């Protein structure tokens, strides 16, 4: 038998359009997954990540780490699986004959065999000297069809074997992004009843008790400044303990202090 001549045919059997169909489907899928991922990421507020503390919120820190790993891992898996479908198929007639499963699938389609009964017969006919050159050439066309159909079958198998893992990876990715988003966005801290805007100063008159005069006399500029009614402004605090600042007058100084009931009382100016 004559030796096999090296022969590379880019689109044997003319099945490229069918193979491209599967590749287009793979591209559509990855585009859809990328779109969903982009939407999820776009809605994620990342500004709070720096405020996370492992001591205070270990659950959220873990969620951020696990979610990030899961999301990035899912993206890598999705890209890898898609490339399995998109990458070019390279195969030879000899490979198909040597691969039992593929060989059986081809032999189950007798119309591919050109009148031969099995692939081994086609292989023999490609090389046998019992046929004329012209007759052998007709078997080359059959081999082309076989290789093309086998490439189609392999692409189909790659796509069908990829679809469910692709979906699983997409679900893992969505869960990862969700966990990441939850972890990265803790609820705002409780700010209690403190107002955002400080209250406006209220003019008051302060009358100090003996204990108040003793405690604040020096700060106010002497005992004379601590006796009688002292003009001041209430600038915060609470009703039972207002924060006040006295108004300077003469040698009396301005002083700011909390005024507990034991030190005196502040009465609003009419």
């Amino acid at each position, binding site marked *: 038998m004559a030796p096999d001549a090296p022969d590379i045919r880019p689109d044997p059997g003319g099945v490229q359009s069918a193979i491209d169909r599967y590749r287009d489907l793979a591209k559509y899928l990855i585009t859809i997954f990328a779109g969903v991922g982009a939407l999820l990421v776009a809605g994620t507020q990342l500004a709070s990540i720096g405020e996370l503390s492992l001591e205070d919120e270990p659950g959220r820190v873990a969620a951020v780490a696990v979610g990030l790993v899961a999301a990035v891992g899912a993206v890598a898996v999705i890209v890898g699986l898609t490339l399995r479908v998109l990458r070019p198929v390279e195969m030879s007639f000899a490979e198909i004959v040597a691969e039992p499963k593929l060989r059986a699938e081809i032999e189950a389609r007798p119309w591919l065999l050109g009148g031969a*009964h099995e692939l081994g017969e086609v292989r*023999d006919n490609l090389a046998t000297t019992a046929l004329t050159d012209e007759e052998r050439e007709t078997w080359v066309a059959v081999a082309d069809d076989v290789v093309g159909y086998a490439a189609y079958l392999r692409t189909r198998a790659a796509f069908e074997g990829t679809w469910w893992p692709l979906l699983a990876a997409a679900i893992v990715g969505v869960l990862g992004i969700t966990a990441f988003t939850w972890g990265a966005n803790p609820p705002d801290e409780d700010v209690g009843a403190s107002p955002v805007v400080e209250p406006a100063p209220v003019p008051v008159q302060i009358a100090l008790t003996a204990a108040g005069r003793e405690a604040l006399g020096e700060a106010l500029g002497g005992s004379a400044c601590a006796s009688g009614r002292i003009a001041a402004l209430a600038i915060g605090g609470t009703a039972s303990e207002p924060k006040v600042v006295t108004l300077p007058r003469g040698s009396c100084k301005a002083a700011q202090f909390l005024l507990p009931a034991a030190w005196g009382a502040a009465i609003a100016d009419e």
Partner: protein
Amino acid sequence: MGEDEPRGRKNADGSVDVWVGRRRLSFPGGGRKPKVTDEQEAPPDGGELPRGVRVDVAESATIVGYDGWYARITASGVDVSPARARRGPGRIFYRRRGS
């Protein structure tokens, strides 16, 4: 010439007989399909293969080609097929939208 060596004979009516082992391939000529018989008679001694008969003895099969046909003789039997491949009508179909 050993017993398994292919031998042949061209008959007066234009037909050709080829012996491979104990099998006889009868090519009637005119492009008609050859017949395969288990030969009971001894093949002709020293029968040269007639012109146009091509024989390829390989490990997997012995192939005899003549008159647009070939016979493939293996351990499991003999298959006779046209020498020119017939490409089938099979194609890969897929639905287009709306079809």
